[in-house]
């Protein structure tokens, strides 16, 4: 059998889930869609004593439009978000980025919150959450707290989430009317993890927001590049984003190549977002 042995727990409420997470702190892992977790289990890259399957907890499968942000519950699948009218209206960059996440079968099962909690630095959604200045809601034995994307992602597959905490909701800020947006990505094959990916939102007030994945141990906002992009200097924005990157070399790409791609993709994403913004202003 591929995965190492574990016990299977099926809490029926959030309280029950948090209770078992705190009881087995550090030795329990949450299962939502399992599209990152089960491959790791199959490779035995991870093992733990208890699997906490949260799929039977009610009221976690939602997409809600709230004041200023789109709230995505822990059990909302990528594909529901991709097809959601609220997401298309309030944060169209989210369904756009989801096109790059795996393929339809993975998106049918995988969850937005799971992808964020997994915190792979080359994944699309953490970069998008970072670009927009979004946050996550964590519930644990000491209560409920909201963590900003920038304080949540700590490193490769590492977050500020405590072992007894459950990520119950991700909050993606809404894009105001008249915004332009784009997601650009370089991957070996469509649906693979990005070699480099860039999320961009050009807001009606003239500011530009960027989020980069695959170029650092965490997704990041290249702030100097955002300023240059807002001034319309696309090449400079690319150069500055590349200078802020600190990628590793691996089987798929050298650090140098990744940095060069950050520069290109930032340029392309900003151009695309600004064009769409103009189109929106005219339309």
């Amino acid at each position, binding site marked *: *059998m*591929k*995965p*190492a*042995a*574990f*016990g*299977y727990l*099926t809490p029926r409420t959030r309280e029950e889930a948090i209770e078992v997470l705190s009881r087995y702190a550090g030795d329990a892992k949450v*299962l939502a869609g*399992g*599209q990152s977790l*089960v*491959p790791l*289990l*199959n*490779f035995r890259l991870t093992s733990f*004593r208890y*699997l906490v*399957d949260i*799929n039977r907890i009610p009221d976690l499968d939602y997409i809600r439009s709230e004041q200023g942000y789109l709230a995505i519950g822990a059990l909302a699948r990528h594909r529901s978000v991709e097809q959601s009218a609220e997401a298309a209206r309030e944060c169209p960059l989210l369904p756009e980025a989801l096109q790059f996440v*795996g*393929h*339809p*079968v*993975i998106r*049918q*099962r995988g969850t937005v919150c799971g992808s964020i909690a997994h915190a792979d630095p080359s994944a699309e959604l953490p970069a998008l959450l970072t670009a927009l200045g979004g946050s996550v809601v964590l519930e644990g034995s000491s209560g409920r707290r909201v963590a900003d994307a920038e304080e949540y992602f700590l490193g490769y597959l590492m977050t500020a989430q405590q072992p007894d905490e459950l990520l119950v909701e991700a909050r993606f800020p809404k894009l105001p009317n008249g915004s332009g947006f784009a997601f650009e990505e370089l991957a070996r094959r*469509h*649906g693979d993890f990005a070699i480099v990916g860039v999320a961009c939102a050009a807001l009606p007030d003239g500011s530009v927001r960027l989020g980069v994945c695959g170029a650092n141990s965490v997704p990041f906002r290249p702030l100097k590049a955002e300023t240059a992009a807002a001034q319309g200097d696309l090449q400079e924005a690319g150069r500055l984003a590349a200078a802020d990157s600190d990628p590793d070399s691996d089987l798929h790409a050298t650090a140098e190549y990744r940095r060069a791609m950050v520069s290109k993709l930032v340029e392309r994403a900003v151009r695309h977002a600004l064009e769409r913004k103009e189109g929106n202003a005219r339309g």
Partner: protein
Amino acid sequence: MKAPRLELHMRVNGRAVALEIEPRELLIDVLRNRLGLTGTKKSCDVEVCGACTVLVDGKTVSSCTYLAFECEGRDVQTIEGLADGETLHPIQQAFVDHQGLQCGFCTPGMIMATKALLDENPDPSVPEIKAYMRGNICRCTGYHAIVTSIQHAARETARS
């Protein structure tokens, strides 16, 4: 560590199944090794190839990365559940008629993904077919005939 075994109840191709499993057992292993349903193929083990695609409550899942106990109380459909006795399902017939298979290894996954696609979108365009089938890989590279088969399957399914 010895984890307590679980009693799994599910329906497979319309038949109620109850068996004792280990928590770590994957759906594909239960289907193939415990139930003898070897039509579902095992290949990449990491949900990138599509060969192990089955339907759970009508939705596609990669059974290689789906724990069997996630199926508790659910309805599983595999390639073995499509034909009506000796009469092939219209999707299977379309793949036969339009050479939608070569070695055949990817075919059960292709057909189950097609079933889910047509249930959701009975009249898909070619770009829609290609986008939906992105997770199903054919190493014989017979994609053109597969897309043609799916188009014909859509027509046949609409008729029946």
